[in-house]
């Protein structure tokens, strides 16, 4: 009964988004306000039914209703309840369900927080989102129904893939999807602006907070995924350049470019065409990511042929969304004016150059991800493109990006001069240079390659920090009051940028130090043995057994001591899940601000003495990688909370303002 209600709710949601995706758009172009007014109600109604459907699916998982195929394939009577809930989005059907639900949530949010927008704009934005919802709901209902029944009903389910039975599964997919799907709002705003022919600073201000919010979710989603892989896969890597990861990195890169481009469009009225193009690309890449991950094409081109219906459907949807929006773009973009002008040396140029670098970086990731697929499809041989390739092509792009990040944060809008820039940045440059040259030697490295890599990493990190401080100094120089007041007067959007940029520096420090100084020991240990790395000692005390709800584990007890003093016990496990018979490694980590101590069990060695192959790591500063991402997210959130969004929202409803001035001409104001 419950699954049928869910099924029915999905159909009702589809009917509602069909209205949402058509009538308001027609109404907006013909000026029929009753039709435009439909957009809000239908979006909210669709969200209600989508929530109901997701609720029904989660309920089916909680009660383990194995008459539902999706539940039978991904749950088990022994699966803990929390993972049954997570299993709701663990399968293909469930994750598309989640996608559609999130899209409904964002649409509903737009319908609520758009009181200050012109009716026509709201109708167009929600109309475009309705069209996207329609495509995905059709995909869900026609090819991946999460409520399909199974008869005869099995007594036991197949259990959730053990890799996914982890707290990461509860948070990672929802956050990631919030980000992916959130970019649909930026996309919808861009398409709506193209449709209405109103591409101006106001449009940029409306879509900015939405874009930043989506970006924050995506950042957190990627962060959780990275951390999860780090502790779950058992050998301490944090990024693998796996196609699935790349699928989430691409929208992140272009989304980052989009955020910055939107800032320029809002503040200076320029880059309009480029911003619209980025908004279209960001969401297209989110869709492409879904296609890559969900069609099975990544494991092999042939997996695609096993179930071509799904793949073809997403491919068609992708073609429709990308092709349609790009056609509209090509048709409308030439009519958009160029907006504010600027000189070659200016903040605009720095931001534009960084946009180009981010786009090129994204293009490179796309090339590396799709290339093996194309070669295979064209029967030109099978190749693997992995970390060595991506590191070789990605890092050289990041160095100029980081350099310009520092310059862009202090350069003046419209026109800057080199002597002026030099005056503002010379201290930053000097400190960066000293730090980059001295630190590798202070830290005891002498081989040329490792010194060069460390120097590059430290240079990038210190450059961002010092240039950001120089920017801060510039801003407070002319503000009156005590130092504290000076800082307090800065708007939150500035602090947002500051925090996010420092976050990038923290991230780079983490990557540099862990790459340069991590110590790995692959050892064979019998209870009583010790292994020392850095000033830490791991003592293998004993081997035990533990039975979990749906697995049986061999559990090692290790004592970690620092300079001879015991710190804590660590319990790495090797788990065997009943339903899958797949061994899973659970690493034990002693985590601290300045790094992690990491133990994971390899394989038992048959010598009758309980010996195991064990991997131990000292990973200095590895946590900074994630702290950096957290700072970036906080920066984004700070920027969204900036006062001017609330103030301008109130003012716009209050009174129609004077005709807008050409922003470039206000420079002196």
């Amino acid at each position, binding site marked *: 009964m419950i699954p049928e209600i869910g099924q029915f709710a999905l159909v009702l949601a589809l009917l509602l988004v069909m209205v949402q995706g058509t009538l308001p758009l027609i109404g907006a172009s013909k000026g029929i306000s009753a039709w435009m007014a439909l957009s809000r109600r239908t979006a909210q109604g669709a969200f209600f039914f989508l929530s109901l459907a997701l609720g029904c699916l989660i309920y089916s998982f909680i009660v383990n209703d194995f008459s539902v195929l999706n539940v039978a394939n991904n749950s088990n009577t022994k699966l803990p309840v929390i993972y049954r809930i997570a299993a709701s989005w663990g399968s293909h059907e469930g994750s598309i369900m989640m996608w559609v639900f999130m899209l409904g949530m964002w649409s509903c949010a737009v319908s609520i927080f758009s009181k200050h927008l012109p009716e026509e704009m709201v109708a167009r934005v929600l109309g475009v989102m309705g069209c996207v919802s329609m495509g995905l709901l059709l995909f869900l209902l026609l090819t991946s129904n999460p409520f399909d029944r199974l008869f005869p009903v099995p007594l036991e389910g197949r259990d959730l893939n053990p890799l996914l039975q982890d707290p990461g599964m509860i948070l990672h997919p929802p956050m990631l999807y919030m980000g992916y799907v959130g970019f649909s709002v930026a996309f919808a705003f861009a398409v709506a602006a193209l449709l209405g022919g109103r591409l101006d600073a106001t449009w940029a201000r409306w879509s900015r907070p939405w874009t930043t919010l989506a970006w924050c979710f995506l950042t957190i989603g990627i962060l959780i995924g990275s951390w999860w892989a780090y502790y779950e*896969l*058992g050998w301490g*890597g944090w990024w*693998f350049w*796996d*196609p699935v990861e790349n699928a989430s990195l691409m929208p992140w890169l272009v989304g980052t470019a989009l955020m910055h481009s939107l800032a320029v469009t809002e503040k200076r009225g320029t880059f309009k065409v480029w911003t619209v193009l980025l908004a279209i690309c960001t969401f297209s890449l989110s869709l492409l990511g879904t296609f890559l991950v969900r069609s099975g094409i990544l494991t092999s081109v042939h997996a695609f042929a096993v179930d071509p219906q799904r793949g073809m459907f997403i491919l068609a949807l992708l073609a429709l969304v990308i092709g349609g929006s790009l056609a509209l773009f090509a048709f409308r973009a030439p009519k958009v004016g160029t907006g504010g002008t*600027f*000189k*070659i040396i200016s903040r605009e*140029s720095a931001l*534009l150059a960084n946009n*180009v670098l981010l*786009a*090129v970086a994204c*293009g*490179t990731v796309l*090339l590396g991800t799709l*290339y093996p697929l194309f070669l295979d499809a064209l029967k030109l*041989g*099978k*190749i*693997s*493109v*992995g*970390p060595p*390739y991506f590191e*070789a*092509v990605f890092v050289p792009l990041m160095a100029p990006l980081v350099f310009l990040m520092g310059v862009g944060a202090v350069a003046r809008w419209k026109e800057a001069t080199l002597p002026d820039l030099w005056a503002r940045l010379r201290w930053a440059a000097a400190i960066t240079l000293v730090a980059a040259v001295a*630190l590798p030697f*202070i*830290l*005891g490295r002498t081989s040329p390659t490792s010194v060069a890599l460390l120097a590059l990493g430290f240079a990038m990190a210190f450059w961002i920090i010092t240039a950001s401080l120089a920017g801060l100094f510039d801003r407070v120089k002319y503000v009156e009051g005590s130092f504290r007041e000076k800082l307090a007067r800065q708007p939150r959007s500035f602090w947002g940028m500051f925090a996010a940029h420092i976050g990038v520096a923290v991230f780079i420090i983490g990557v540099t*130090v862990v790459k340069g100084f991590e110590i*790995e020991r*692959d*050892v*064979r*240990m019998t209870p*009583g*043995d*010790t292994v*020392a790395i*850095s*000033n830490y*000692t791991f003592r*293998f005390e004993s081997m035990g057994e533990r039975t979990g709800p749906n697995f049986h584990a061999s559990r090692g007890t290790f004592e970690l001591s620092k300079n001879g003093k015991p710190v804590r016990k660590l319990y790495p496990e090797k788990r065997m899940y009943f339903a899958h018979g797949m061994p899973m*490694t659970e690493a034990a980590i002693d985590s601290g601000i*300045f790094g992690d101590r990491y133990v994971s069990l390899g*394989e038992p060695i048959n010598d009758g003495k309980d010996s195991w*192959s064990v991997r131990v790591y*000292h990973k*200095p*500063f590895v946590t900074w990688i994630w702290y950096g991402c957290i700072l970036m997210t906080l920066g984004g959130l700070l920027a969204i909370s900036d006062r001017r969004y609330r103030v301008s929202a109130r003012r716009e409803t209050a009174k129609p303002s*004077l005709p807008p*001035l050409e922003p*470039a*001409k*206000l420079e*002196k*104001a």
Partner: protein
Amino acid sequence: MKKFLLACAISVMGCWGGMAVADEAMPTENDPVAQKRAVELALKLRCLVCQNQSIAESDAELAVDLRQQVREQIAAGRSDKEIITFMTDRYGDFVLYEPPMKPATLLLWIGPLLLLAAGVVAMVFLLRGRSQAATESAPLTEAEQARATALLEGRES
């Protein structure tokens, strides 16, 4: 800052400090240099039976065998290049995470450069157009001037 650098220097430099403890665990590989090489090589080689993992990361039987193979060949004094050739002869280019440069992969390797070049060229054209427009930008009209003055004097925001 100083304290912080010191902490990080200590944590990094003291690495091989307490080596000579009584029951020191047996490393699976005795020679640390060979061990490092083996790990670096293993990271470049794909475990053919896994989803997408290098043989360094995987615990699959094949990965364990190949790791052993790599170690043995290093012990036998083979160079990295010889070992990689040995692997690609047996398993094809698919085993290698760093695709070799050959006609079919040419676009893969020069693609990023082409993209960058295209981006830079497009940007240069755009900037030149813009900066010319900037020098020619028209003066304010009278109404705009009036509003700008109003803004400057704080009568409006």
